[in-house]
């Protein structure tokens, strides 16, 4: 081996100390997210407002009632005020016309429109419920809110039962009114027949009245001419006969007068019955819509909110599980580092940093976002915000942590000496290699130790190191680090002969033996001349 003229083999070593701020930041930001998620998943007992206590979004239902009822009433009002204005034979026809007009007013189109109003009302009510749910979820957690929503749904069921009974009552009332109306119509028909039968002409009534008056005058004149006293038998008889004759003649007139009164009465009752029937139909319709609102529309909306929150719980739990798994991995790998790199993680510092970061995390905004089911939570954004809250960790200095752990200079230097040995060797000159100094010792080896530390000009630790190691036969350089959280020691050893490595003593016999057995074939390549000289076995 003709290699002993070569004197400049080298080796290196590296060691260091670091505060794993990236991992700590991720760990703490993960913890803040887990805590926030846990917060919205907490169970508590809450007394949310009942369905009745929740405000209505607007007066659409009331307006509907009033508007339609007002319209129906306006249709009937002229007839109801003076039904006798209508000739009795035309009354039924007129009433039926108004009835039809009123029926149209509460007919299919109007009912569809009314149903839409009620559905809109349910949607608006659901919005109110949703808003209230968000507030409750923020204050008391989503599971409690789901329970409250389920209570609202149950309340809808109870109200529906009551409304169902009312609808039945309205139906019965309407049926009863219908029967009454039919009776009245029948009575009216009979009455109208009677009126028609005795139909008294006005000139006939006037003629009878004149005849009656003429008879009375003739009787009175006869008694006066004949000088018959009225109080005589003849006078009395004459007057009686005259009165009877007059009554006989004018009786249809009185009957006619009596019939007119009955007509008016029947007319009023019939009109009122028609009107009541219209309004009862309207009331029944409104009640049915109310029932649909409480039985179908509103529960459907509440169901959608409940489903939204149940899905959200699943989504949050899933995210929480993922984050918890991440946290476990991070926690277990917090001290993972290269063999010669030490990590510093103080429990007290972790608590302080967590508290500090927690103040910077937009936790309220997160909770609001998690409790709102309008859109899916933006997990990536949340993660980014959490990470940003712990950005301050980038300014954490490894030096400060070392000072927290080791208060005296002696302790600090003792702590760092093991790292120095890992970088440059216990006896300087053996970083990641063992050297036989009896061979290498003739010429001093070049040993350089570069310490990379943040802001060395203002670093107390750099001053400590300089005073402790600056004059120990090792070229010490302290250079500025770009990473405050780490201090690195890079050893560079140079200038030992190949024979000085500890492997050499074992490798040489193996090489000699192999060369004896296979000649130059042990080399990675052959020189032509050597090939001829040594030859293969």
């Amino acid at each position, binding site marked *: 081996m003709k290699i002993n003229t070569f004197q400049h083999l080298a080796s290196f070593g590296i060691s260091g100390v670091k505060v794993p701020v990236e991992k700590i930041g991720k760990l703490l930001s993960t913890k803040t997210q887990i805590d926030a998620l846990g917060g919205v998943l907490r169970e508590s007992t809450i007394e949310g407002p009942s369905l009745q206590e929740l405000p209505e979004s607007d007066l659409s239902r009331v307006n509907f009632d009033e508007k339609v009822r007002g319209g129906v009433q306006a249709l009937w009002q002229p007839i109801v005020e003076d039904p006798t204005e209508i000739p009795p034979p035309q009354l039924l026809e007129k009433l039926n016309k108004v009835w039809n007009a009123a029926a149209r007013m509460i007919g299919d189109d109007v009912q569809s429109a009314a149903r839409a109003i009620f559905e809109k009302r349910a949607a608006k009510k659901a919005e109110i419920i949703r808003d209230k749910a968000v507030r409750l979820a923020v204050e008391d957690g989503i599971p409690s809110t789901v329970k409250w929503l389920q209570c609202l749904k149950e309340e809808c069921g109870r109200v529906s039962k009551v409304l169902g009974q009312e609808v039945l009552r309205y139906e019965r009332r309407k049926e009863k009114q219908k029967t009454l109306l039919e009776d009245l119509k029948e009575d009216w028909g009979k009455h109208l027949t009677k009126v028609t039968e005795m139909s008294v002409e006005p000139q006939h009534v006037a003629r009878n009245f004149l005849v009656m008056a003429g008879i009375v005058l003739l009787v009175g004149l006869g008694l006066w001419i004949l000088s018959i006293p009225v109080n005589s038998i003849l006078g009395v008889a004459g007057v009686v006969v005259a009165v009877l004759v007059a009554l006989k003649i004018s009786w249809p007139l009185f009957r006619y007068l009596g019939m007119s009164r009955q007509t008016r009465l029947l007319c009023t009752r019939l009109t009122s019955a028609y009107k009541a029937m219209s309004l009862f139909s309207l009331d029944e319709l409104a009640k049915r819509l109310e029932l649909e609102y409480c039985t179908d529309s509103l529960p459907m909306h509440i169901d959608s909110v409940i489903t939204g929150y149940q899905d959200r719980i699943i989504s949050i739990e899933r995210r929480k599980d993922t984050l918890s798994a991440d946290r476990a991995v991070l926690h277990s790998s917090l001290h993972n580092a*290269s063999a010669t790199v030490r990590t510093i993680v103080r429990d007290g510092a972790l608590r302080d940093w967590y508290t500090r970061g927690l103040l910077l995390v937009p936790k309220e905004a997160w909770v609001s976002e998690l409790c709102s089911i309008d859109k899916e939570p933006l997990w990536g954004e949340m993660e980014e915000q959490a990470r940003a809250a712990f950005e301050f960790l980038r300014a954490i200095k490894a030096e400060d942590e070392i000072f927290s752990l080791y208060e005296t200079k002696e302790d600090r230097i003792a702590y760092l000496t093991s790292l120095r*040995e890992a970088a440059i060797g216990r006896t300087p000159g053996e970083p990641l*290699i063992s050297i036989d100094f009896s061979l290498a010792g003739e010429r001093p080896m070049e040993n350089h130790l570069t310490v990379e530390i943040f802001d060395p000009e203002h670093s107390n630790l750099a001053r400590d190191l300089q005073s402790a190691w600056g004059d120990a036969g090792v070229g010490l350089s302290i250079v500025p680090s770009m990473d405050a959280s780490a201090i690195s020691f890079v050893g560079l050893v140079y200038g030992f002969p190949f024979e000085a*490595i500890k492997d050499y003593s074992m490798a040489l016999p193996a090489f000699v033996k192999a060369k004896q057995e296979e000649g130059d074939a042990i080399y990675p390549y052959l020189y032509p001349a050597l090939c001829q000289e040594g030859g293969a076995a």
Partner: protein
Amino acid sequence: MMTNNTDTLGLVKPRYFVMPTFLVGIGGYAKAVFPSFDRLIHGTYGFRPDPIRLTIFDFDEAGSESSENGQKYSIEHYLKVLSKKTLKDVAKKRRRKADLPWLKNVEPYVALDHVWYAEAPGLNLYMQSGNLAWRLGWEAHVLPELRTGLNGLHPVPRELDELQHRGFTVSNRSCIWVIAGGCSTTGPTGLIPIVAELKRNKPPETNLFVIVFTPNAYRDKTDAHRTRGRAIFMATMERLLGLFNGQVFDQPYSASGTYKITLEEDPCDQVFLIDGSVSGGRSDLKAEELGDLVANFLFKFAASPVGEHQLGIIGNLNSGLRLAKEAHHEN
């Protein structure tokens, strides 16, 4: 790595430093280093900047990876698996004593009688198999990869602008590191031609370093492997250090002999020997731990101004070396 500019809140604003670096791994030990290096680069920058280039050559297709926080960094994207098919044909024909005229030009440089082939991963400590195998695949697979790595080492102005726009400070120095095991087959047989090829093709201002793992770093191997590995290590180092002592590397690296690598100067700036012992042999590192530490060192070199500082130290040492060599030759 971040630099310490502060923002308006007094917080440290991320700025990055990168020294253009081409890491060339040869054989299995490089597979313990590169994934860790890639992990550190990605952990710092979030991606691997273009001026940091990785290539591993191996005759064994086995992969390796490093992982952190569920993220895996595999070598599959930059592992160049070299074919052993032609080597197998040659070994078979040599056993049958068949004439191989097309190998005539390389015959003086390869002990063809010692070319063996085994149906197993790698080259199985058959040095001449490695010696031949590299030559057979050089022009087609090795040379283009090395040229690509060298061409992309220094970013063009557009890439430089883009990197600066992303917060990078790009060093005007650059390094090539060749990492090879010294006690196997692929590393020892590929190391010198690759170093010679890089040396003659690299930009003059680029530093070229070699890291060789010594026999002690092969603790997990069998005794037989380690014994033969020691012999291979010694043979390889003799050849490598011979180049520093005036030997000329002038070898054909194609079957036809038309492509030659010739080097008449020091093959590299520095040879780093690593045996994986710490504190003068008081404790030994496992292969994985050692790979991780070497990766840490390379990362520090490539991603921190410490690299430039180290280059300064090495530059001073090498100028001293030149004077010493001149004095030695005069004597």
